[in-house]
């Protein structure tokens, strides 16, 4: 999966317009990024990527690009800010 598809999944998860999220977006600026969204994100990356992410790892993320970084080499390209 490429970064674009991943961001599109995040858009869908947070009910944003497709293409709304950019890697540089800070998590605190995203409406709907709350504790349930965090759990949803964890479920999403577990099911789609087989990656187990812990809440403490997410707590250290400040931007969307940081979230993508949690997937390591499971994502096909670097997220451009």
């Amino acid at each position, binding site marked *: 999966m490429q970064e674009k598809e991943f961001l599109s999944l995040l858009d869908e998860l947070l009910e944003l317009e497709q293409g709304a999220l950019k890697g540089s977006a800070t998590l605190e600026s995203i409406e709907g990024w709350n504790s349930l969204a965090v759990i949803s994100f964890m*479920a999403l990356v577990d099911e789609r990527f087989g990656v187990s992410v812990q809440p403490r790892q997410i707590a250290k993320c400040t931007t969307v690009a940081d979230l993508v970084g949690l997937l390591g080499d499971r994502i096909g390209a670097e997220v451009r800010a």
Partner: protein
Amino acid sequence: MDLTGQTILVTGASSGIGRETARLCSQLGARVVLVGRNQERLAETLRSLDGEGHRAEMFDLSSADEIPRWLKSISASSGPLHGLVHSAGIHRLRPVRVLGSRTVEDVMRINVGAAIGLARGFCQRGVGAAGGSIVFLSSVTGLVGQAGIAAYAASKGAIVALTRALAVELAPERIRVNCVAPGVVTTPLWQGVLEMLTPEQGAALEAMHLLGLGSARDVSYAIAFLIAGTARWITGAVLVVDGGYTAH
């Protein structure tokens, strides 16, 4: 409580509440049929039981239609079952926005479908002994709301309804059907959920339990009470064992 001379089948016996219930039943004098998917962990439970005559059975409960025939074969070799405890279950922390039908089906298949299959099997002639007792595992989440676990909560609410329906249906056959509704107990299943929560969320959930989090042993006492003759006049009941979670 005394289970001397009785044979009790326990699903989910390789860990958590199932394992602890199996241990307690053996300490109360029962022969226990342990059911699980992990041979090594079942053998571990088996070694920890008191008394003799216990056995471990590997079985995948997701094949609900196979359960009656399988239970028939167990009773053919172990004799009629006096009690059945369905402790196997799966938990999925999935907010509704990411709750796909596959997750719902997986949860319902084991938590509810297998329960129905086990009841079907138990009430066959020669499988469940006269005066037999079935205990299902519900949860406080089947009684009061909790965010992020809609599928699990629905399955545990279904267990309450199933318990009452079967209690009525099987009473003429002198089979009692009850369930326990635990709050959070510190089991491997809970550990898996805890890993998906922030420390603050975990602490908030713990604070809801007025007496603190429980142990598998706390729940196993309630299960054994319902299985044993101590509950001979109780059927269709939901025994809440939650350290005060639902008291406020």
